[in-house]
């Protein structure tokens, strides 16, 4: 396949399809902004033009000048924050991608993310940093989060493997169970008699030893930041490169994990077995691969990856967690789906698509800051992109034009279908005759 012209290669077509989805998504958002702008008297054409410009190059917007025009230029705060927010997105994207490789749709990333958040925060805040070195607490909290996520992800995996229950349904159920479980457990840890499980002698002594942030009591329902226990991801000088932003070494860890996942998927026997189960579970079993075990492994790894995203996000030390999650699931978990779809489940591609999604996030805050629009327009764009990637196969066939049938069949063949092109054709022809 590598000898074929550039435009006909599967990889190129996937890339073009993704870029096309992005462009169409951005234009869709722009049109919405334009319509709303023209229909609303206090926004008008100028406001709409500002909105559209921000959608495309909002990352480099800086401020408004004295005459009210937008000023664009290098904005290190934005870029740094983009990298910071990309960290959990890359991880949840990897989570969805690796399960897709095994033919499973991991819509359970939000639940796994929440379980990871809970385990990480509880560990990071419970071990006193006076007697245990902070970096050790960091590692324990990170691993604890991963294990919690892996166990949570394994539940739908086991249901799928042993009882053949649709993993999408099981994942949705476990999501909402996790959402309530996390709130409940934090409630117990905050209000019941289990006290003294969490304390920190370095900065302050709290009255009843709970996770609930009582120091900054202007907000309610928030857990302490991990920095209260001196636990935080090192910055490694990234804060010097991007002054004024929240960026830390978490992004480097996420990239490293993405590369490791890439190697596991593409260069190891284990990865091959996972993919084989995804292509055809029964054929894989016939070939001596333990399909059930592989399905569970895949979901457990997916859970661990989503949870690792949560750990990296909350161990940064400058993020707060509101534990009343019983009504809404974390968007970062769901946004792993578009990240993986845009990257066509390629772990290295996830790094870029995750960063892109984080950029959209930043653009959203810029829109809220500088215009009468709000950040939800970027969610509309994301949704449009997901919708488009649902039929990326069609887009890909449009790109390759007249040779589309062969290309698509080849492509599907390489990915999923064990049916050879000729077979597929005769089958179609037979039905028409």
């Amino acid at each position, binding site marked *: 396949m590598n000898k074929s012209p550039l435009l006909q290669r599967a990889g190129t077509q996937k890339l073009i399809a993704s870029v096309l989805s992005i462009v169409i998504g951005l234009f869709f958002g722009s049109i*919405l902004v334009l319509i*709303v702008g023209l229909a*609303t008297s206090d926004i008008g054409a100028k406001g709409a033009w500002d909105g559209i410009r921000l959608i495309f190059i909002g990352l480099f917007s800086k401020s408004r000048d004295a005459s009210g025009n937008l000023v664009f230029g290098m904005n290190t705060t934005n870029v740094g924050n983009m990298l910071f927010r990309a960290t959990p997105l890359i991880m949840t994207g990897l989570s969805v991608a690796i399960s897709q490789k095994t033919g499973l*749709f991991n*819509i359970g990333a939000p639940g796994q993310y929440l379980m990871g958040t809970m385990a990480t925060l509880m560990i990071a805040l419970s071990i006193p940093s006076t007697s245990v070195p902070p970096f050790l607490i960091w590692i324990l909290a990170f691993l604890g989060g991963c294990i919690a996520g892996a166990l949570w992800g394994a539940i739908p995996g086991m*249901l799928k493997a042993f*009882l*053949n*229950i649709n993993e*999408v*349904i*099981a994942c*949705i*159920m*476990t*999501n*909402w*169970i996790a*959402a*309530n*479980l996390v*709130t*409940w457990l934090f*409630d*117990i840890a905050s209000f019941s008699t289990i006290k003294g499980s969490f304390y920190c002698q370095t900065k302050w002594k709290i009255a009843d030893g709970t996770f609930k942030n009582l120091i900054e009591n202007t907000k309610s329902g928030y857990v302490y930041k991990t920095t209260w226990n001196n636990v935080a991801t090192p910055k490694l000088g990234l804060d010097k490169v991007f002054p004024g932003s929240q960026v830390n070494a978490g992004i480097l860890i996420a990239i490293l994990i993405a590369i490791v996942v890439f190697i596991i998927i593409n260069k190891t026997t284990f990865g091959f077995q996972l993919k084989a189960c995804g292509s055809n579970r029964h054929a894989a079993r016939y070939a001596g691969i333990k399909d059930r075990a592989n399905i569970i492994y895949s979901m457990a790894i997916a859970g661990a990856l989503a949870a690792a995203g949560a750990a990296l996000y909350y161990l940064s030390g400058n993020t707060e967690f509101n534990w009343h999650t*019983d*009504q*809404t*699931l974390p968007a970062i978990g*769901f946004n792993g*789906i*578009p990240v993986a*779809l845009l990257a066509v489940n390629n772990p290295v591609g996830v790094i870029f698509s995750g960063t892109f999604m984080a950029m959209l996030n930043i653009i959203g805050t810029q829109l809220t800051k500088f215009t*009468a*629009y*709000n950040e*939800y*327009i970027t*969610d*509309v764009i*994301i*949704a*449009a992109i*997901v*919708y488009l*990637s*649902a*039929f990326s*196969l*069609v887009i890909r066939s449009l790109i390759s034009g007249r040779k589309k049938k062969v290309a698509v069949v080849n492509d599907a063949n390489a990915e999923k279908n064990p049916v050879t092109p000729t077979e597929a054709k005769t*089958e*179609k022809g*037979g*039905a*028409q005759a």
Partner: protein
Amino acid sequence: MTFLVQQTLLFAIPLMIVALAGVFSERSGIINLALEGIMIMGAFVGVLSVRLLQSVPAFQEAARQLAEFNAGNIESSSAWLTLQGMEVLCMLIAAAAGAIFSLLLSYASINLKADQTIGGTALNLLAPAISLFLIRIIVNQNTMGMEGGAGGASWFLIRKTFFGYDSNADLGFLGSTFLDKTYLATYLTIIVFVLMSIFLYKTRFGLRLRSCGENPQAAASLGINVFKMRYAGVTISGALAGMGGFVYALTTQGCTTNGDVAGFGFLALAVMIFGNWKPLNIALGALLFGLFKCIAASYSTLDINGDGRFFLSEIGVSSYIYRLLPYVITLIVLALTSKSSRAPKAEGIPYDKGMR
């Protein structure tokens, strides 16, 4: 007890109709994961139409008369009937919005044969995004209610005084539960549920629809247009879910919307599976899950037998347990019935003429 039954109904009825919406789609062969999104869309458009219709002079006059009547200034008034008509109108608008929104899913999954799960997920992402985007533009905050701070209750709630009873009259258990302080939407939804269930099981169209979810190739060989049937299934599903979304927003949220239905669409999916894709079981499942929701929402002040003690709050089980129980039960039911699950056989598989 009256309170318990009323509250359970408020939660159970939207669940019931949205679960039936799921049945229509899945029985035609399309997995409708977008129930949550369609509900959000229905809730948004429904509340928005209430807001817009509020400025119509006839309705304003009716609301003014109703307020006078409730205050006891006028003897009798039929103004409430006008407002009930407005409520029905808004339900229809919400249903239309849901049906139109669901076309996105039908187009992707029927015409383009795209992955139905991803298509549904896209709709679930799109609905809250669009409604929140517009809500923020319209009211500059995240929750949109009725104009001028009016609540749904003051416009649409049915009271016993409407039927000539004195405000102190005792109607007994049945009257006070099912007549006083109820919403017409609740009963209309039950009627729609019954009619649509009969439609699905006792008509030729319903039989054809169900056949497309079991074996579309066989259905096609008998001259049934599978594409049209699936479009019909998803569109009916969208209309029911959109209506359910508005009913949810009206009866449980006081006619407000915030781009969120708190996982009700997914809970309805659970009810549908729990009910094994059959209307009667779904109705029972919805009542059970509605009871859980009701307990979770108000367990600390729930006085079941009227002895002045809050039994459930004395047990000390957290409300979150009641909230997560429906999902756990669904998983257990799925696990127990996995061998004999009656899910439509062809659901999730794009229809391909050549396949058999």
